[in-house]
């Protein structure tokens, strides 16, 4: 049974593309066949994060318009045999996505892969609607800040009303992924706490990804963070999140404040 997942958010810049690549790679490493699809037409980022930007010949729009066949547009990952990418077009705009076209491509991908992970554009526009429309499950990516959380709430409302599943009266499976979480800043009250976010969004938690330089480093060298350094904290958090997506019961790791020497000194002074 293949599963279509949309990675979405209300606000831009919260880490959807990083998440799509990291979850896709983690699932592929676990032996599943995975395709990551870039729905952010007009912009194009997933190919960069996957390190495949120089191998793009055809893209999603070409497939939708019938210029290319799906197998021609799919790019196989160099590191993982079971990981594939369907890139977006940067030269077309979002209107090039048609409802019928998207439906056809998703149906075709469903037949070929265990997991279809769609990187949605941010917000509530057409492109985002089309990306979420045929999904079985959604990963809502949010940062622990009020604007991101409020916009995520809006997106959750859309997922519950505008998707194919919702229109059939079914529930779309929803998972919340909190990214860029900084335990130290949260403890100082400069960031929303995990409890606050969960209280506001009342959606099951898939994982908490700690703020880390590792994520930026990985995306700049074009490697999903779960491939570049499996032992790093964010990679571990993504790998656990992928296992939860597969239905495993994995205990939640909450990033803790790492006490450095300076913190200890300050701590003593404050006490």
């Amino acid at each position, binding site marked *: 049974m293949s599963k279509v997942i949309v990675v979405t958010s209300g606000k831009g810049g919260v880490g959807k593309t990083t998440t799509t690549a990291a979850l896709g790679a983690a699932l592929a490493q676990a032996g599943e066949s995975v395709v990551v699809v870039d729905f952010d037409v007009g912009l194009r980022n997933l190919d960069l994060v996957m390190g495949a930007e120089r191998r793009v010949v055809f893209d999603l729009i070409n497939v939708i318009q019938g210029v290319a066949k799906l197998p021609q547009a799919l790019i196989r990952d160099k590191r993982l045999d079971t990981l594939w990418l369907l890139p977006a077009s940067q030269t077309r705009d979002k209107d090039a996505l048609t409802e019928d076209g998207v439906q056809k491509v998703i149906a075709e991908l469903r037949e070929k892969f265990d997991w279809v992970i769609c990187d949605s554009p941010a917000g509530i526009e057409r492109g985002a609607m089309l990306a979420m429309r045929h999904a079985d499950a959604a990963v809502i990516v949010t940062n622990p800040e009020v604007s991101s959380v409020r916009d995520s*709430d*809006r997106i959750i409302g859309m997922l519950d009303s505008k998707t194919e599943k919702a229109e059939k009266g079914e529930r779309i499976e929803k998972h919340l992924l909190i990214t860029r979480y900084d335990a130290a800043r949260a403890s100082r009250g400069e960031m929303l706490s995990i409890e606050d976010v969960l209280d*506001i969004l009342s959606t099951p938690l898939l994982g908490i990804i700690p703020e880390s330089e590792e994520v930026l480093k990985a995306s700049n060298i074009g490697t999903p963070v779960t491939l570049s350094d499996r032992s790093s904290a964010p990679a571990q958090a993504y790998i656990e999140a992928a296992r939860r997506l597969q239905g495993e019961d994995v205990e939640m790791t909450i990033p803790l404040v790492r006490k450095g020497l300076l913190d200890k000194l300050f701590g003593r002074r404050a006490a």
Partner: protein
Amino acid sequence: MRLIGRSYMAFALTPEAPVADWLADLDVRLARAPEFFADRAVVLDLTSVRLSRAGIEHLVAGLLERKVRVMGLEGVDPSKLGPSLPPLLHGGRAAAAAEIVKKTGPAEKPAPSSPRPTSLLLNEPVRSGQSIVFPEGDISVLGSVASGAEIVAGGSIHIYGTLRGRAMAGSLGNNPDARIFCQKIEAELLAIGGYYRTADEIDDTLRGGAMQAWLDGTELKITALQ
């Protein structure tokens, strides 16, 4: 051309077998109130009698003689219908029963309208960007109301989670007794009958606690619920 839906209150007449006796019984009642059916919509519910097409036609004609005009049929096999008969209706909902009584004068009470639900229960949290409007009565929310969401009720509003968005009770303006209750107040705006308070005007000591809001003349008052 405009197609606009409109709903009317219809009386359902349910003939019982034998039809002749039932018609005689109807005559007795009509003798007391001859004009009762004069300007009313009547639906014939044929579930409890088995009539042939001729029988149905005969019954409808018999009712017409008694000035009862049948606008639709219910509970009958469509094959028994023809162009001479009223159309088959579906989806009727039960309303309060009416007794055939004589008109007492020009100031007769309007026919009882079908009982509409007077409260709306929401099981799910109300998400940012959603607007729930229920002018007929109260709204109860089991979850929270997100910042950027709004609840508009003709009656009172009951929120068993956190109210972060806007709540407007007594929205039709003729219900000064409407109130707003919530378990935890973080509201952006509270309004009753058009009188409102924004977040800034809500006492900080109330924040985060259970509260109720009501209207005292033209002033919206908020107190903590113990």
